């Protein structure tokens, strides 16, 4: 029974990745325009690269999108290379492969993303739980309100405002970049602190932008859970308010939120991509918007595909985690 569950989830993951790669394969070819050919023409005009490079790029491009072969064959090749994580080469930074670009920028994105995802999840759910709990003091409940107000504000706008007021006007924080210019990256404490200092504003804007959503959904969930018979019965049992809050109310209200976590990562990646480029952090997002600016198509497709696969994988991992949290799931 359990094995079947795992197999089903893995099959689901494969389906998602397959769907994502199919979309990235077909959409570019549905437009009558051929952006890559245009790009070559443009590059050749401005003399952006040497003739020998051009041959290699064309070969890679042909391999990826090989227009000479029938469509289904191209498709099979494409899916095959996606399965091998071969996402082609960059036009602009030839001979760098797309995967190399992803690998060099991935650590920055992971740090920013996970820090802000986890912090906003924890802060948002605690605030939401407190806000819905009828016995929490009024001031504690009102703390949640300003965060809800921020919910409609996309992190990128917060990033703009923070950058303007705190970094540009008040000069409290650096104006972007991953670390101060002039220091060499190493693992020394001072360098790590420097990096952390540069991450504050982008992280804060992402956290502020996503806490509200958690507060709101947790508050809704909390109101539902506190009406449940088992919370009432816990009070009839004479349990202390703290025990009821933690073991009966919070634990149950959190369950559905966990499923939302992976989905929230997906939208946080979106915001992160833009915030990164705003703060000139060398993460995936910056690479993506640079590629968009430069019409570096294989990099765009590659990064998009990579992000999609990562989010889908995380979602499936969270699903695996879920039975550990909710004993009712194990049965089916």
């Amino acid at each position, binding site marked *: 029974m359990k094995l079947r569950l795992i197999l089903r989830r893995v099959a689901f993951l494969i389906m998602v990745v397959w769907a994502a790669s199919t979309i990235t394969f077909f959409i570019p070819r549905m437009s009558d325009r051929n952006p890559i050919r245009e790009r070559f023409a443009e590059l050749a005009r401005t003399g952006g690269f040497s003739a020998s490079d051009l041959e290699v790029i064309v070969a890679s491009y042909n391999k990826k999108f090989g227009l000479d072969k029938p469509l289904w064959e191209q498709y099979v090749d494409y899916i095959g290379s996606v399965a091998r994580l071969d996402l082609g080469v960059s036009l602009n930074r030839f001979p760098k492969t797309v995967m190399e670009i992803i690998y060099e920028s991935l650590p920055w994105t992971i740090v920013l993303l996970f820090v802000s995802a986890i912090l906003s999840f924890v802060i948002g759910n605690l605030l939401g739980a407190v806000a819905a709990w*009828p016995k929490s003091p009024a001031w504690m409940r009102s703390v949640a309100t300003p965060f809800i107000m921020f919910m409609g504000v996309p992190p990128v706008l917060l990033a703009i405002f923070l950058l303007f007021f705190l970094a540009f006007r008040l000069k409290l924080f650096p104006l972007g970049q991953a670390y101060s210019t002039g220091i060499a990256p190493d693992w020394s404490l001072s360098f790590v602190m420097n990096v952390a200092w540069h991450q504050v504003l982008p992280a804060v804007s992402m956290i502020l932008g996503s806490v509200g959503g958690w507060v709101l959904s947790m508050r809704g969930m909390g109101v539902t859970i506190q009406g*449940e*018979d*088992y919370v*009432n*019965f*816990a*009070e*009839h*049992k*004479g*349990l*202390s308010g703290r*025990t009821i809050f933690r*073991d*009966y109310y919070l*634990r*149950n209200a959190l*369950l559905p939120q966990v499923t939302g976590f992976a989905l929230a990562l997906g939208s946080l990646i979106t915001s992160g991509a833009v915030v990164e480029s705003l703060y000139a952090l060398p993460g995936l997002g910056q690479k993506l918007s640079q590629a968009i600016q430069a019409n570096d198509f294989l990099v765009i497709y590659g990064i998009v595909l990579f992000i999609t696969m990562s989010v889908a994988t995380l979602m499936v991992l969270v699903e695996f985690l879920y039975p550990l*949290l*909710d*004993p*009712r799931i194990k*049965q089916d």
Partner: protein
Amino acid sequence: MTPILQIRDLQVSYYTDLGRATALNKVNLDLNSGEKLGLVGESGSGKSTMALAMMRMIKPPGRIEGGSVTVGGVDLMQLSDEEMRMSRLSRIAYIPQGAMNSLNPVMRIGAQMIDAVRAHVPDMSKEEMTERCMQSLESVDLKRNVFSMYAHELSGGMKQRVCIAIGILLKPQVIIADEPTSALDVVTQRQVMETIDRVQKEIGTAVILIGHDMGLMAQFVDKVAVMYAGRLTEVSTVRDMFTNPMHPYAQALIKSLPNLSNKGVFQGIPGLAPSLLRIPSGCAFHPRCEKAMDICKTDVPAVERYDGDRLVACHLYAERA
């Protein structure tokens, strides 16, 4: 013998958008140790409010507006919130109506029992607590392995037994069972009621069974209290109640019961129960009462004692009081 439970002038109101609804109107009730009382009435008569008021679990927009509930000499209404918390389960326990959902789905049964013990006897050793919980499970005919199970692994009847096992963990002086079998099949209902009966005898506690099923009352309780529109109308022994009810509402209630010997002749009570927002003047039952007199429309009948032990609130018997 002083009663273990004394309720005096208990009054509870709900403040709704449509006005104030008095759900309990100066209710008085005594109950002796080891006695089983049935509290019956139509929906909205205030019987569940009574249970919650005794537990001091009335939540806004409801409010306890006065009166006392004395259990074993202690007036619960005078306790601090923390003292009241400690009194729940140890002095007065509650067995809930919705046993289907009364157990935390993500905690093992044992953990939910132990946290109840720990909340009241924090310095008991873990082994002792476990043993206490296991014994409690056994006394309601559950196996020890239920301790490490989750609620979804149990049938409805078993869940209700677990709730009973939790209710008797600290041997309270009063147990309130609020329609404990309303969600169960008849066969399971009987098993559960017999379990309550047995543990009640074992620990000698007083039990208040809340419900609207007079049949269940006939099977289970010693005394029946009938509520109507937030007031007690009659309190009698179960035999008196079924053979010679005095209050016209109680009479109608008994007459509305189908049983094996009156095939085809049971009849309902005409009219509808009043809304607590608009309780009729005088005796609240007078619009539905066949024997209503003029005085019933204006004066609220006082609860009087008849034949030694019966309490009835009806003008019909005024001269006998």
